[in-house]
């Protein structure tokens, strides 16, 4: 996978993860073009797009678009399922996830993504294992934090 973008129906970027080294300028250009292209597509249309020399796989969940760029020889359908698995993970972690969870806790969303995909490849496909890893890291945070008061609001959300 080359990169993953999450953006809202209004075209606001919610999450971006780049697995290929690109300059900031290129990233911005790609994001702008892709958001435009994907938002212009109708709901019943194909989830795959040929874009430049890449293949774009996207899926909309409520108000959020999940969009992955893969290489030509990659399997489009499994990429679609990667997106779905990621949504499942978010859902399980946040407990029925909504866009706001991702907006306010985007760093958590990144942590989950990093446990699931590493360097653009699926790292751990067992849902249980991913969540276990995240929980362990969260627990550690809590331990470290116990000394300090009060609890940061942000962290509580992650633990709810």
């Amino acid at each position, binding site marked *: 996978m080359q990169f993953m973008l999450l953006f809202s129906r209004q075209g606001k970027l919610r999450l971006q993860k780049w697995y290929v080294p*690109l300059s900031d300028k290129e990233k911005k250009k790609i994001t702008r073009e892709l958001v435009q292209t994907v938002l212009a597509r109708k709901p019943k249309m194909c*989830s795959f797009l040929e874009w430049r020399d890449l293949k774009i796989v996207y899926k909309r969940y*409520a108000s959020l678009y999940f969009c992955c760029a893969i290489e030509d020889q990659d399997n489009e359908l499994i990429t679609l399922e990667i997106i779905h698995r990621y949504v*499942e993970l978010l859902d399980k972690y946040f407990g029925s996830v*909504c866009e706001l969870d991702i907006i306010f806790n985007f760093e958590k969303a990144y942590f989950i993504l990093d446990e699931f995909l590493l*360097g653009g490849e699926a790292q751990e496909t067992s849902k249980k294992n991913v969540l276990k890893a995240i929980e362990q890291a969260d627990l550690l945070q809590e331990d470290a934090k116990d000394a*300090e008061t009060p609890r940061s609001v942000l*962290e509580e959300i992650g633990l709810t």
Partner: protein
Amino acid sequence: MSDVVEKTLTALPSLLSLDSQPGSAKLSSTSKLGNLIRGITELTSKHEEEKLIQRELASIKEQVSSPNTSMRQMKELMVRAIYCEMLGYEASFSYIHAIKLAQQGTALEKRVGYLAVSLFLNESHELLLLLVNTVLKDLQSTNLIEVCMALTVVSQMFPKDMIPAILPLVEEKLNHQKEIIRRKAVLALYKFYLIAPNQVQHIHNKFRKALCDKDPGVMTASLHIYLQMIQENPEGYKDLTASFVTILKQVVGGKLPMDFNYHSVPAPWLQIQLLRILSVLGKNDQSTSEIMYDVLDESLRRAEMNHNITYAILYECVKCIYTIHPKSDLLEKAAKCIGNFVLSPKINLKYLGLKALTYVVQQDPKLALQHQMTIIECLDHPDLIIKRETLELLFRITNAQNVTVIVEKMLDFLRVSTDDYTTIDLVGKVAELAEKYAPDNEWFIETMNTVFSVGGDMMQPDIPNSFLKLLSEGFDSVEEDRKLRLFAVDSYVSLLQGEPGKLPQRFLQVISWVLGEYSHLRAELQPSTVMRLLSKLLDTKNTSSETKTWVLMTMTKLCEGAAGVSVAQEVSEAYSSSLDTVLRQRAQELQHLSQDSELRARVVPRDAGLEPLEVDSSLSFLDGFVSEALAAGAAPYKPPHQRQEELAQAKALSLEPYGLSLPISISSCSIADRQSPTLLSMSSGLSGDSTDLSHKGGSTTLKLDGVKRVWGKEGYLAQREPVEETAQVEVPSPFRSPSQQAEADSSHSQTPTPVPTPEPTQEKQQLASSLFVGLSSQSSVCLMGKSESAPQRFRRKAKSPSSSSGASEQISNSLVSAPSTVDNLLCDNLLDTNITSELAVSSPTQTSQLSQSLTTANGTCDVELTDTKGSNHSLIRDLSVAVAADPSPHEDPDKPKDFSSHLPAELSGFSHSEITPLCSNQSLDLSACHVQQKDSLVLVVFIYNSSDSDIQQILLELDSDDLEVSGVCGSPVQEVGSQSVAVCQYSLSVKRPSVHVEVGGVVSYQLPVGTPQSAQFSYKLPLTSFIRPLTLSTEEYGTMWLAFSHDTKQNLTLINEGQESLAATLNVLKKKLQLHIVEIIGLEGIVACRLLQDQPCLMHCRVHAGTLAVWLRSPVPDLPDCLMYYCQRALQEH
């Protein structure tokens, strides 16, 4: 589950408004990030947002640099900085603080710090170097979470040069008791493998251990590395096939823990990865393929649930089955599977079905026939992506009969497409089809007009080039040629009378060239009329100066009669003071030639067709050069189209034929077997295309060539001929009329569309019959087509020793237009003056006997004008001539076998490398070796004159990017007598170290008769030839060690000879690489050497855990890396 998500996400707006709602939204609204986010959502304009963010950034900046900010606050600030960056505002001031946070924070803060680093920086960012120590520390931490964080960041980004610093620690983690750590370590090594493969070469056996790991997650992770390695070298891993098959069997059989199920499908990611690996291993390998047939069959059988994930597996299975050595019953099942995809009401599956179909259609054209009605529906699909993929499919089944319909569909698409990438690609395809299968002149010209107008200035430059060449070379019938050109002239004149300002520049250039060459064919068209039309172009603002140059050249050809001359004068005056030199030059030419009609007639003769200029269009004179380059490992030439297409093909199923009815026509062989490395791609595409067109005058019933590709995937298709002949005889496909077929199909097709009304059905069936014509009768057509069409195709002759021309492919024995400046611009090296090449001429029906009739051509070309062409022209001429003169490079019986006796006396005491041949041709043989002296390295070049006459003015020029070259002995060789040897010496020293350094050169010389000639060569030598021992004391070593900045570390194998293993290992290195052992102290040893002349490199070795930890340092960049490579090799070979 997704339903739940949908529901909650749709409930979102209400969540936003309800403040009292428990949950994350409310809680975070009190945090600073929450305030920021809320603040932004309340804003109405982009401008306000910008102001707010700038304020925010300023406040963050102030706080991060304050010494009083705690790490906890810092973490919060980083999150805000990430958010601002995500909105598109730069926060580069925070990068360094992100690194600091990762370094100094406790677990929680560290995690955010690492995240910020991975989001802010990319792997080439210099600040990343500051992270290395932190990563090192965390890798050694006893806290598992910290180790995980370090491994996570390492697998995403790490500076390449610093890999050796952490590699041992990451390797260690492969044995960690926690599977999550092992898994991340494997992925980190995968990342290292991708960015610096040679760094991890020594741990290949550890990858095997990871593959056998008891945890499925670790095993899955290791497959990423294996896929990569197997793609690079399938041969090296054939022994693992059985293991992969066993793993897949277990997975498919549900032997993995339930955790790995995804929607009750066992480990789909793992399955797909394994299928991908198997397809690479089984490609072109029958015995390996046989191992996997069973498991593939089982995978197909098991994947029956109606869910995306099973389709993903099925798709990968189908790809694999069509890639490996074929098995008929599997192919049948795979074909059925593709059918399910194509007929699926789900658009995503339909897309993949089309994609799969596109790649198997050449092996199995019947499959496309089966689905023709679906394909036609997809052609009108509202989603452009589906349409585009359908066109791709149609492109592959195009033949002479359906070309008009398919091209029309493609042009329709082009007119609405707004995407540049698509346009460039499709335009190229249309042009290819038009040239290959054009049914008549009008259609061809009109199609090309659309191609030029739509493709504009984006299209591949070889499209207009080959079009012009096709027009000028013509076909077999003079009358046909005339008609084609006449039609082009008429069409262009009317275009110019319209609104030429809107046409792309490339098209205008084509138009002006054609009018210059052929407007005289239309007798009633006055040259001055054309000139006036053209001069309008000159006045248009949009016209580029390149186009203006073309126009001026055209005017030079046309300016006759008083009216013409007056236009010419006017124009040339306007441009003779142009700032553009080329334009000024053309204006001058126009001015002079328009005044001197006699000179003009000589320079741009009109009916040059009377005296055909013969040209070796196959560039066979380059064959020697090509084969040499190929032997030296150069990639075979592919035209840009094909390269693009191969990129596209690589994504899916193999086109490799396995005997079945893959119709490769003879013509494809004749063209594809020439792999010209030159820039002259147009000629290659063209000679074949023109042959295809050339028999269009013949009876139309015989043009049923089926689906064919001019270029095979590998370029060279000749050897497949026999296979294909037998195959075509064996597989007579039952003929069904397309409409019957269509009915049969539509009756059982399960497309979601309502049953079409009779009328549209009829329309569609008509379309179907026009699209799929020529496919159903595949095999019989091929048989017929073959016997008829084979003689019409130009085939490359076998290289016979008696024929000095070698294999010069004939171009059609037709008119080649007069040499003119434009011609020269177009095909410099073809119209060269001095080539004396033989040309085979034969009538199209006598190809079988074409070898004999050779005519010697001495093309005459105008020299005055060619002189303006500049220097690259002469370069091409020299090279081509040198190779052209080469009849049989390796068959000289008199060639002295051993040059070593010619080695200069002063060098004979030293060891020299094997004498290797550099290049050879008719008259000269060049060989070389290098001699290692104490303080220098001498390259000795032997020039052997194998001809019967003396060769004069020999000039040897050497050049290298990596090396400094200087001549050793006085004056260079000038002259070599017949059958004797001259020796040149050069002293070499390294400019820039690399594992192998190369010196390239050109030898130019003059035979007593004939033109100056030249030949190119290159000589490669290992860096070790430049390594000499460096003697110094331990103290000196100590001071130098500290002073050097470039270093590398690696663990090498120790030669196991008991107590003395260190000494034994170092002695091997000393012997093989000429190192100097300074001292051995216990388990450590220090060694020194220098790279000629005086560039030191120091080595520090330590025996540690059964391996030799080697640390190399030098002031020269890259030297430690190269030396490490040789140390590793030396020890491996031992």
